[in-house]
Each structure stands twice: as structure tokens, then as C-alpha cells.
């Protein structure tokens, strides 16, 4: 299981370093540059792999972090408002891409979101929490 917090940390180094670090930590085989570029396309980030990840904007960092967890291909992916730093259109495209990707691979995606629209559209099962209680 891998979790992505609302404000993910970006490690020192390039976008490539940041994408590969998840695989290194999980002791999985490293991905090729083509696979890394595919992961970036999936989160709609058009940046060179060599670019300094710490100089990206908040939304771009969030997308690098998303691509990083997708690459590590966990059985269960827990996302805490993964698109909070994105505009509505990009948010929709990325969530749709993530959901399709997980469904194709038979993985479980658990996501915390404030957006009822997103939750209604993409979830198989929805749990609503209000004032700390499940309603």
C-alpha cells in the first residue's frame, strides 16, 4: 500500500530522481526513461525529466508525486486530496486517468476528497464523513 499526502514532499534532485526514488524505496526494478515519460503524460505534466523538481509550481509538484506513486504500482493506493493544487479541468482529467489505470490493473484506489462531484462520478463505494462521523 502506498499513500500520497495532500502536500507531498519533493526530494532534492530532478524530476527523474523523484520518479525513481519510489521504486528504489520499494526495492522494485527501475523504470526506463520512456516509462517515466508515460507516467508524466498520465498526470498531464509536460516537463523534461532532467528538470529540477524543487523549482516546479505547487500543482506540478503534486503531479510529479502522483506519477511517482503510480509508477510504484501498489495494490492499494491511498490518496489524500490528490488534486487540491489543480484547476477543476485538470483535476477531472487526472482523476479519470488514475481511476482507469487502477481499474485496468485491478488495483484498489481509496481517495479522500472534498468534491462530491468527483466522488459521485468515479467511486464504486462512497463514505461521507461529517464532523468526524460517518453519515
Amino acid at each position, binding site marked *: 500500500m502506498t499513500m500520497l499526502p495532500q*502536500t507531498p*514532499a519533493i526530494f532534492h534532485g530532478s524530476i527523474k530522481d523523484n520518479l525513481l526514488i*519510489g521504486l528504489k*524505496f*520499494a*526495492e522494485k526494478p527501475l523504470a526506463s526513461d520512456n516509462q517515466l515519460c508515460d507516467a508524466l503524460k498520465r498526470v498531464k505534466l509536460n516537463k523534461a525529466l532532467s528538470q529540477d523538481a524543487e523549482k516546479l509550481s505547487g500543482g506540478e509538484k503534486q503531479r510529479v508525486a502522483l506519477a*511517482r506513486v503510480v509508477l*510504484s504500482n501498489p495494490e492499494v493506493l491511498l490518496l489524500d486530496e490528490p488534486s487540491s493544487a489543480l484547476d477543476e479541468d485538470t483535476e477531472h482529467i487526472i482523476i479519470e486517468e488514475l481511476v482507469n489505470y487502477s481499474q485496468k490493473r485491478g488495483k484498489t484506489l481509496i481517495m479522500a476528497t472534498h468534491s462530491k462531484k468527483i466522488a459521485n462520478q468515479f467511486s464504486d463505494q462512497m463514505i461521507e464523513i461529517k464532523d468526524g462521523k460517518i453519515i
Partner: protein
Amino acid sequence: MDSVIELQLWQMAAAYIFVVALLFIVRIRGISREKEILISSTRMTVQLILVGYILDYLFNNINPLNTIGVIVVMEVFAIHNIYKRTKGTLSKPLKKIIALSMMFGTLSSLIYFLLAVIHISPWYDPRYFIPIAGMLIGNSMTGISLGVTRLVDDMYAERHLIESALMLGATPKMATKQIVDNAFDSAILPTINSMVGMGIIFLPGMMTGQILSGISPVTAVSYQIAIMLGILGSVAITVILFVQLGYKTFFNEEKQLVVNE
């Protein structure tokens, strides 16, 4: 070999001219450090006179219990000093690791150094045991203090990166590797740097003392080389033990980071 010049009381008193000069300079420049200069000079004088008499007693009353007692006191003071020097609060488990690393690191290198390198006899001869223990414990204390400060500071400053690494499947060891390496580096670096400058930039205190007391410079140098290697070993064992065990105290049994905001 020339006989040693015994310092008379008036000669020692003459050396205090430097303190007077320093007091004069800080007064003229308006730097309010007179109190600290007076306290530190007085403390140094009183402490050294006391230790002179204590060592004199110990050297004339050779007894294993006396020697062990002095080492225990040195260790306790050194460990207490490390706790005091570190800013912020140290957790109980981290304090235990500091004490354990200091005890094991310094005592193992001390015993090896005295019994295997120098071959002292009897094994508790205070003339060798106490000054060499002082050098090993003192240098290890400085090293571990730097390591503790760096480790604690970085664990707090980089907690978000550590947590992110854990979320990506890293073990606590992987997640803190860079922090642990940096702590080890900052702890061992002063010892390495002092070896580089030794003999060119400065003459080490022990060697200078031996030369002044009439021992041949070659003998003094051979002792100095041996003691520097002993110090390096002691600092290295102490610090590596500390960082290897210390980082674990920042995680619970579920391998979660327990550093608070």
C-alpha cells in the same frame, strides 16, 4: 636531556598578564565579557590545581578501584555534558543510546589501546589509564555531541521527506540514510581535520607536554601518533554506534515516525 624548568609561583603568576591584557582590551573596546573571562580563568586555575593534587594522590596510591572510580566519574560527566550541550529535549531512549554508545565506544578502544598497543602493567596504572581515558572520552564526547545535534535537527527539519519516503515503501533505515550519514560525517570530521593539520599547523597538547617535560621528541611523536589513532577509533566506534541505534528511537514499533511538529 636538559632538566625540566620547574615553574615557580611568581612565574605562573606572570602568565596571568595575558588575562589582564585581555581584560584591558575588552574594557577599552566596550565588549562586556569581563565577567566570563574572570570566571573562566578562575575556574581553569582552581580545576587544574585540584586535578593536579588528585592525580598526585592517585599516582602515589595505585589501586584498581581508584582508577575505575575515576573512569566512571569521567564517563558520567561526559554523558551529562552531551545531554546539556544539545539544544531541545532528548527523548529517554535517545539518552540511553548516547550513554550506551559512549560507554561501549570509549571503554572498548581504551582497553584495546592500553592493553594491546601500550601494554601497561599493572592494567590499572593510573599514570597511563587516566590521561589516555581523558583524551578518548573527551574527543568522543565532542564527536557524539555534534552527531546528536545534527541527527536531532535533521530528523525534525526533514520529517516531511522521511514520512514521504515511508509512504513510498521505504524502511526507516532507507528513509533516514542521508540524515544518518550526515550526522556521522559532522561527528567524525573534526577528528579527521585535526589529524590533517597536526605537526604542521599545530603541535598537539600531549606531545608538547611530553617534550616540555624532557621526553625525546621521537618518543613523544610515537605516543602522539598512537593516541591519535586511538582517538580516531574511539570517536568512530562511539559515533557509528550512536547513529546506527539513535535513528531507530525516532520510530515506533510500527515503523512510524514519532517526531512531533
